[in-house]
């Protein structure tokens, strides 16, 4: 039950361009290779990430086609996600319109003020920071604690460590991840891949072990890839589908599967189908004829 919530959707593939399954290389076969590798490693829910910067228009269409590989990889749940590079407070006004178009909303603040806004007031699911650069602000416990208390998780992408040859990025990532762990005491952090190629993917337990190098304990490391990541997906779903996260109207089975917790969903589905079967059976029975009356009639 492992989650990878950041697989960058290739920029070259837009909503209008035909998704071509060309032979050799290209963004789609590369993406398929990445996703198939992740599935082989044991990830069951994968979110495609679309990065957006600058001014956000009100009629953005999602270029992500989540079910492009669903036939080939049937056991994986695919989600769509948007990461907004926040460098202007006005961008946050576009958030409500994006809720319906993407499953998960993430934000990448570039200044301390915007980080504070993201942690305390914005209606999002994830805060993603580019940890392979030196951050222009300090990570403080007060700010990040506010995010954790609201249920917003903070994301570490591990691909800079597995990407080839960039020593500086690797060191920055380790340093920032350790600082993040110190600031949040390990709560509310998820780890995802950010993998642009199949070579950058790593298995979930290997990722959890990397987390122990940054200061995590073994349980927190595993939670970062499994339990907490699931919490993000559930949080996102609740934000979209429920009223104040209290009441949810379930329309059909497909909606149920959004959490990715197959066992719980399957149980729920079995319960519902059993109930429906019973109802059908009760309807189909002919009205009970009283035996006594028949005897006296004939």
């Amino acid at each position, binding site marked *: 039950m492992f989650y990878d919530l950041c697989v960058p959707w290739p920029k070259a593939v837009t909503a209008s361009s035909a998704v071509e399954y060309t032979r050799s*290389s290209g963004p789609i076969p590369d993406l398929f290779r990445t996703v*198939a590798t992740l599935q082989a490693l044991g990830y069951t829910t994968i979110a495609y990430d679309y990065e957006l910067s600058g001014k956000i228009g009100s009629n953005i269409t999602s270029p992500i086609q989540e079910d492009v590989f669903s036939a080939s990889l049937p056991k994986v749940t695919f989600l769509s996600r948007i990461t907004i590079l926040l460098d202007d407070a006005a961008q946050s006004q576009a958030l409500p319109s994006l809720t319906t178009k993407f499953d998960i909303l993430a934000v990448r603040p570039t200044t301390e003020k915007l980080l504070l806004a993201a942690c305390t007031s914005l209606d999002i699911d994830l805060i993603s920071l580019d940890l392979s650069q030196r951050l222009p602000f300090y990570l403080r416990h007060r700010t990040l604690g506010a995010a954790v208390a609201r249920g917003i998780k903070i994301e570490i992408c591990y691909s800079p460590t*597995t990407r080839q040859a960039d020593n500086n990025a690797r060191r920055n990532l380790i340093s920032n991840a350790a600082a993040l762990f110190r600031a949040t005491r390990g709560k509310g952090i998820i780890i995802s891949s950010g993998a642009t190629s199949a070579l950058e993917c790593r298995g979930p337990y290997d990722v959890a072990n990397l987390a122990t190098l940054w200061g995590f304990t073994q349980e927190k490391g595993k939670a970062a890839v499994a339990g907490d990541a699931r919490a993000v997906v559930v949080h996102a779903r609740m934000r979209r589908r429920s009223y104040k996260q209290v009441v949810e109207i379930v329309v059909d089975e497909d909606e149920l599967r959004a959490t990715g917790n197959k066992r719980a969903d399957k149980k729920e589905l079995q319960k519902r189908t059993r109930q429906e079967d019973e109802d059908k059976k009760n309807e189909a029975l002919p009205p009970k004829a009283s035996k006594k009356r028949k005897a006296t009639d004939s």
Partner: protein
Amino acid sequence: MVRFKSRYILFTVHYPVLNDLDEISPSNYSASNVPPLFQTKKATPLSDRNILPGGKEGNLGKDMRTLLQRRPAPDGVTLNAVNTAFKDSVNRNFGDLGAGLVRASVSLKYFSQATSTGIIRVSRDHYRIVWAALTFLNEIAGVKVMITVDHISGTMRKCEKVAISKNVKVVRELSGDM
């Protein structure tokens, strides 16, 4: 008595971007120690597949999963190459301190070119260093690789058992596809 405790790390080397699935040469492994399935199953190279979801390659997911997970090592990825590579990785990522901490106890106990599986022995106190070094490793003898750690245990026998059970599973899947 204070016993010296060690950890045996069972790992598999994957080659997610290698395109030569058709060209596995029989010289890599002999008929005596490899089940016939590995020799006779010819897979079309990734580059020549038409990856259509739901089309005739709709079964591709399962096929790819097995093939991506287990394949014989290409030329160049030998026991010595793996040995040098992961020790280099410890040096590069953990410096003199890391290399020194594991130096006395680390050794590559087993590596099979037929299954790209290996077992490393490390002292229990520092096994995470070696584990992370394997995770950071992305190239062996010029071949781009990705390493997953399948099992870590205190005895070699458990690792062997897990390796065998995983191989049995792969063989079953491959024969199921045929």
